[in-house]
């Protein structure tokens, strides 16, 4: 079943048109990855889905419902959680508090339920348990990424938007992060993953789209994309 559908998405963000008529679908239970070099419009796509981009035209539908014009708070209540580029963990709050706030979209959820769900997160991410009361600004990049993902999952989303989770992380940590991503899909959450690191992304994804300057260049299954010379050219130029 189609969970997310983008049709002719055009976005103006800061500079001129950053997205130019983008078409994209994500089916329930998939991991779909959005690839491309910097400035290709990947992050803008996620931000547009989350309602953070004011000037968009075209259509964004979640299970058939249009998201255009909705505020971020309303979109997240529909079941989309966004783990943004740079993680953006609240620096002055503890790890536990950060994760707890991930459930802020769940209307009517009582404090007790959220607290026990947070305990549940520490089961899924046991490495974070010892950091439970550490303040956000003291964490390393890899730890921040784990907390950000846990926080995103607290929203019990139907769709998780992951923006460049490998950014600035050492290769070994990146592998850990992507194991987590694969695990998320196994637990039933659909993931739209934006990544610059094409190799890691394609190793977990079911399908991928490659963007170049706001337009769709090519899409398909990971193996097809990996062997496609256009993909390499999109990042490094020329014909290799």
């Amino acid at each position, binding site marked *: 079943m189609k969970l997310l559908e983008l049709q002719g998405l055009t976005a103006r963000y800061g500079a001129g048109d950053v997205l130019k008529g983008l078409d994209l679908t994500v089916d329930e239970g998939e991991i779909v990855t959005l690839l491309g070099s910097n400035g290709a419009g990947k992050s803008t796509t996620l931000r547009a889905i989350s309602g953070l981009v004011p000037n968009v035209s075209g259509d964004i539908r979640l299970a058939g419902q249009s998201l255009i014009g909705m505020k971020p708070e309303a979109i*997240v209540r529909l079941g989309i959680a966004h783990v943004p580029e740079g993680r953006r963990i*609240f620096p002055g709050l503890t790890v536990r*508090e950060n994760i707890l706030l991930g459930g802020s979209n769940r209307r009517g959820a009582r*404090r007790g339920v959220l607290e026990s769900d947070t305990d549940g997160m520490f089961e899924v991410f046991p490495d974070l348990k010892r950091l439970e009361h550490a303040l956000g600004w003291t964490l390393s990049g890899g730890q921040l990424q784990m907390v950000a993902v846990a926080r995103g999952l607290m929203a019990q989303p139907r769709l998780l938007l992951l923006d460049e989770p490998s950014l600035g992380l050492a290769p070994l940590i990146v592998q850990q992060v992507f194991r987590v991503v694969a695990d998320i899909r196994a637990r039933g959450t659909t993931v739209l993953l934006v990544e610059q690191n094409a190799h890691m992304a394609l190793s977990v994804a079911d399908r991928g789209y490659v963007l170049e300057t706001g337009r769709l260049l090519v899409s398909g299954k990971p193996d097809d994309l990996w062997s496609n010379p256009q993909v390499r050219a999109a990042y490094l130029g020329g014909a290799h």
Partner: protein
Amino acid sequence: MDIALQLLFTGLGIGSIYALVALGFVLLIRAASVVNFAQGEFSMLGAYLMVIFFTGFGLSYFLAMILSVVLMAAFGVIFAGVVYWPLRHRGQLPVIISTIGASILLANLVLVLYGPSPQVLPGVFDAPGIQVGPVFMDSQYLTIIVSAAVLVGLQYLVFEKTLLGKKLQATSQDKEMASLLGIPVATMVLITFAYSSALGGLAGILVAPILFVSVGMGALIALKAFAANIIGGFGSIPGAILGGLALGVVETFGASYISVPYKDAFAFLTLLIFLMLRPQGLFGERIAEKA
């Protein structure tokens, strides 16, 4: 030494007022990046509301106080809607100037309604005070210090222990991320304005018996509270409190040992020294612009 202790008590008393107003300031700065030059008028309005309810309508002191504070909270929301909301994307300068305009508007509206002569508001307690060792603790000053301590304590509890408090903190640390989690950011900002206004009003009610209720009472307090913010570290909550207390003490000692007429100058001189030498204050961060 006895005199020093007495001065310390008095200094902490007036310092607590500065701390409360400075607290109202810093919360708005953190939540909405607003530097509110009308903060002093919140105190002035609170005091005048007390005059209306207590002196005018003859309500009991505590009922009048509660009513005044609640009305000030409501006023805070209106203030946010008129002065802040239309300008929230336009940068710092227009908002600063707009709050300056609001400050003048409020002060002069009250002037029209009540005239320039100061009103008298009695203290909470009839007894003048109690003698503790060498220090005579004036009952109103005592009330101020205790109230401020209780309020700060309650605020700490709300911020640290309640979910709402966490959401308020999150909003002030990263507004966009808070909104991405589903936290209603606009509501959080309005709550902060309401609280900040109520805080200012309460400070005005507490200090009114000492300073008299007049149109200009808020302005000078606010300027000093703002100075306290900078001295303590702009944007820091403990900095606001400690800065306020410190300023009250410095000012009281300065007035007594150096010069009374220039009492008010001490606040500004201290401020200028900090701005020149250590603009980040005692607890604040470095000020820099990213390219």
